[in-house]
């Protein structure tokens, strides 16, 4: 099942939703570069209506970590 986080990653990184999973990270995904990282941050903030701190942004090193941070902020269904 494609969740909200996977949809954002697929959209921003221009990848098939099915290719996004919890292990997706900048290390195995060339399109997850510093420019798209900014876009990801802003898209996530917009989708979940939250504001991320620099610490949280820098900790978002994989889809799983993104979900964990979002859950920690009570962002709801990811």
């Amino acid at each position, binding site marked *: 099942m494609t969740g909200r986080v996977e*949809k954002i990653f*697929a*959209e*921003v990184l*221009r*990848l*098939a*939703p099915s*290719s996004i999973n919890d292990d997706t990270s900048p290390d195995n995904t060339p399109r997850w570069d*510093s*420019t798209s*990282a*900014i*876009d990801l*941050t*802003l*898209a996530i903030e*917009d*989708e979940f209506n939250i504001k*991320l*701190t*620099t610490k949280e*942004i*820098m900790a978002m090193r994989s889809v799983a970590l993104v979900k964990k941070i979002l859950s920690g902020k009570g962002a709801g269904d990811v």
Partner: protein
Amino acid sequence: MSSAPDTPEQVNTKTAWISAKAAWRRFQAEQESSPEKPDTRIGVAASFTASTLSPFVGAYLVAEGFRPEISVGPYNQLFQVCFDYKSFFGTDCGVICLLWRIEDLMGEELDRFLNRDGAALGQACDKLVALAGAISTLRSTFSGTVIVSIPSVPTGIPADISSLDHAAQLGHFHRTVVARFIEIAANLRDVRLVDFDAAQREVGFQASFDARQWYIYRQPFSDAFLHSAGTKLARIIVAGRRSAKKCVVLDCDNTLWGGFIGEDGLDGIEIGTEFPGSAFRDFQRLLLHWLRQGILLALLSKNNEPDVWEVFDEHSAMLLKRGDISAWQINWQPKAENIALIAKALNIGTNSLVFVDDSPMEISYMQQARPEVTSILLPEDPAEIVSTLQNTVLFDRLDITDEDLGRAEMVRAELDREQLGAKMSKQEFLETLGLKIDLFQAGTNDLGRVTQLINKTNQFNLTTTRKTLDEVRALANSPNHRVYAFRISDKFGEYGLTGVVLVDISADRRTWTLSNLLLSCRVLGRGVEAGLLAALASDAAAEGAVEFIGVFVPTKKNAPASSFLPDFGFKPDGDRWRLPLTDAPKLPSFVERI
């Protein structure tokens, strides 16, 4: 890996910049598999990380039908790019953008200035000269478009625009650097400026800076700022590659004024200083602004033609005058047919016309019949007219040429007068007019026209007392009355017989009562009134009179004349106004009596 299909549900369209980024991603995905080569190659060199600007420039260009390719040069290599652009952007690059921030290029000078080092501002300005030299080198080796940014107010530094000493500190530094840079850039031929300072104002100082992105990625600007700045940059690129629209073709009723002239009459339409008339008036002000940029104005209205011209000629609140209109079709024929006649009359293509109408039916009909015409539906709420049309990029152009400025003049000499009026003070304007006034006692041949004016003039008419030709003739032949008429001319032309004064002379010949005085509205506002009264006073004095008595009878329509008597020194006396001839105005220096 296959690209994800971008269905609308996946694209978050909450804000303009999010959809712009999505559009740019979509285009890049298509471009990966497209055989079509980019048609616009853009190189960006910046003193900051500028890669986040690309989507906004790119999305705008894609929406305009271009296939852009944007290369962002390495961080803070502005000077290197200027001296050797080919090694950064190759030889088929068509646009080079040089974007710089005060913080990056002269951060150290700014810091010293804020710490009261008086020499620092001058040293910062010296760096501008060096930057201009580098730009000049680029200009001489690169044949494409060169665009340089005007820097915004520095962010992410200890000084802040909210501090009380901003005006003398950060504000002074920024304003001085910007002003100096614009001065210097004015000497660089063929270099375009993109105003990032204005982009920052559009989105707001606080909203323009993203502290998190700055610390994590050395990217200082928020998406809101980048969207505004990128759009400005893209508009310059488009304007240099596409010819601007040349003429706005305007509906009249509920477009230039509220209501229908044919039904509501001159007094019933809404145009003036009160809403909603004020919104239509502001729209006319915008049209006049465009006119001064060389955009022609045309009328395309389903109306009786004389009714429309009556509004232009007689309604005092109209900012647009008949002479501002270069072509018109005012009749009951289909607008799609008429608009072709307008294009033909102006000798331009229908594809350079912009059609503006309040009727969705007319807009839709035009879009179908003449898709090459840009058709704009006016918003229903008059308050939104100006804000909707003001931001249109249809008339974007890079250089306002002398020819642009003269285009409408060539069509109608009247425009000349409007432009002079706009650029000079009223007095300077009047002095250049060369106004000649010919005040005379109406002869037999003039009485028909005099009677017509007496009965037709509604606005500048002191008493609005109507008279028949026989009554006027009787006055003209009476030794106790005078029927004065006058003609005026100025350097722009002759206006014919455009005013009348009726005088009753007292039995002792010492008092001249101005039983009526009226002027055609098209000659007002150029010092005619003062000249007329001075000339009349001179004639009266020559005949032994010592005093004028004035009469003013207010009507619904004659507000323009309401202050005439007090303006020229008449003092109220019961229901009349008195002016000793010794206090009468002298002939103004800019008026010649012939």
